[in-house]
């Protein structure tokens, strides 16, 4: 018997009688908090920055002022092509983006309870980008924010994403004596622009 059969037959023999799968009722968690206020607060707790803008142009001009030293930039937002200093195509390897200073992506889902934004790989030309870029900037519509993770997954249920990530704040670590340091292996900063 190979290990697969072996493991499966041992489980079949050792498992308890079937127990019922509990139903998740998200209404139990309703806390009446203001969704935008809560999202703003949680993005900041996670070490991110939050801004409000009216248009993509407005967003780009704010980003340029925030990072005057940035040289290598890439954005997927409509009408921001002049911001890009490089192109992302299939011929390039993930390693080629090591020096990417600013990456601007769009998110279609934010979660108020933890300040996380969802990035599916349809929204990014290459999976490594939001991790390898020094400064990650996310554009998010206010209507795209839900209260809890439960509602977030309800929205994702119909999406067949091959890869996707919830990101909350910049990369961080507290592995040296519990001192929080922003900027571990991923982005050194995360800015969310609400529209």
């Amino acid at each position, binding site marked *: 018997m*190979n*290990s*697969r059969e072996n*493991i*499966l037959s041992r*489980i*079949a*023999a050792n*498992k*308890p009688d*079937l*127990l019922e*799968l*509990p139903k*998740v009722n*998200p209404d*139990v*968690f309703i806390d009446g908090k203001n969704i935008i206020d809560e999202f703003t607060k*949680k993005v900041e707790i*996670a070490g991110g920055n939050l801004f409000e803008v009216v248009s993509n142009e407005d967003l780009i001009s704010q980003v340029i002022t925030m990072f005057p030293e940035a040289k290598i930039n890439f954005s997927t937002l409509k009408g921001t092509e002049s911001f890009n200093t490089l192109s992302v195509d299939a011929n390039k390897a*993930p*390693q080629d983006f*090591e020096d990417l200073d600013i990456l601007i992506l769009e998110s279609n889902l934010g*979660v108020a309870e*933890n*300040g*996380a934004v969802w990035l599916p790989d349809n929204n990014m030309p290459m*999976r*490594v980008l939001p*991790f*390898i870029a020094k400064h990650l900037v996310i554009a998010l519509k206010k209507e795209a924010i839900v209260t*809890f*993770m*439960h509602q*977030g*997954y309800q929205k994702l*249920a119909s999406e067949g*994403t*091959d*890869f*996707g*990530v*919830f*990101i*909350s704040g*910049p*990369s*961080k*670590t*507290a*592995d*040296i*004596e*519990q*001192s929080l*340091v922003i*900027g*571990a*292996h*991923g982005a050194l900063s995360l800015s969310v622009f609400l529209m």
Partner: protein
Amino acid sequence: MSHSKAASIFNKDEKKVNWHDKALWFVRHKRDKSTHTVAGWEELRNLGHGIKAHTLSNLDTYLIQFEENALKNGIQVHWAADGDEHNRIVHSILKEHHAKKVVKSKSMLTEECHLNPFLEADGIEVIDTDLGERIVQLAKEPPSHIVLPAIHKTKEEVDELFQEHLGTKPCDGDPQYLTGEARKHLREKFIQADAAITGVNFAIADTGGIVVCTNEGNADMGAHIAPVHIACMGVEKLIPKQEHLGVFLRLLARSATGQHITTYSSHFKKPREGAKMHIVIVDNGRTEQLSRPDFRASLHCIRCGACMNTCPIYRRSGGHSYDATIPGPIGSILSPGKDLKKHSSLPFASTLCGSCSDVCPVKIDIHAQLYKWRQIITKETPQPFVKKTSMKMMGNIFSKPMQFNKVGGIARWSLRNLPKGVINSKPNVWGKGRDLPIGPKESFDTWYKNRKKDE
């Protein structure tokens, strides 16, 4: 070495013990602050418990479903009965891809299987990329905590370690500088890696996908750059549906560090174009634990570490004193199932205060299981002479009320009159490092009867 002996060595440096205790209590406190802001937290814990219990009761079906979906998604699936087979599978995948340089993100399973030495023996470089894990790897030590692997190291120790291995400048343990240097050092490793190994936090049966949670982004930096991604998971990582992540991702980070969610919760379903993805599903004693009705709930564990941070014994004895891959309360109920003799002292490394069960996000009855392991261990493994005889004597005394009263009287008198040197003599471990209270003049029984008389 028994836990108590290893703990007494750790306790020789009292200042460091106090520092360790406080560092972990700080994390426990952060957990409290964040969980208290969640309406319905207890309901969330109930759901976590219920979903895991259901999954275990149908685990074979879910594993088959998971495999079927993962294969459809273009992921190769492997099955390993034990740690040795797991290591051989990972090794053969690496060989197949001529991988010489491997970056690994946190995976307690690969620690449990001792994967690194196995691969290193064949000249493969394995770099642990979580900062805490890299610190203990450089120090040639195992992690002392499952979420905070280097919690036992002071920043000055890390400073010295980095000077020696990474050529950093002396900095009085400046965490900002040291982390920055580690980022540069590991960035190079990510860029050059031939393969990436990650753990798995959750495997979803109905999508065939896996979720990996990190704060540093190291799992993603590995998996999205290297041409091969190998994800290693125990059979118990399964959950039925993607929507259940809503429950577990709300519980995990809050319980672990007090964050509302980890920085990155990465959902892998298909390999990226041109890359390969493998999943290794491992048993290594888990199906046996499933057969034990009293202990199977230990397989609910989502590895948050909250039971360690809250445990008065763990905080004062350090993770290494457990001499097990998973230390602390949860480790003490998992390890005896693997090797009862080697880990026979672990279920006794507890005051049975129950704090571990109170903070557990999936409501494992940890302290009750510790108590149950004690019953088994006392029967099945040889006990120290003093403990055995004193237990027998106590059993004898408690079974005869007259004798109990007499001995109680003598004990109370002794605690009032005998010199401390006699009371705290060697066989009385309760007198070690503390004084026993002065014996009262009368027993509770006498006091109660007198009180009744006065009514």
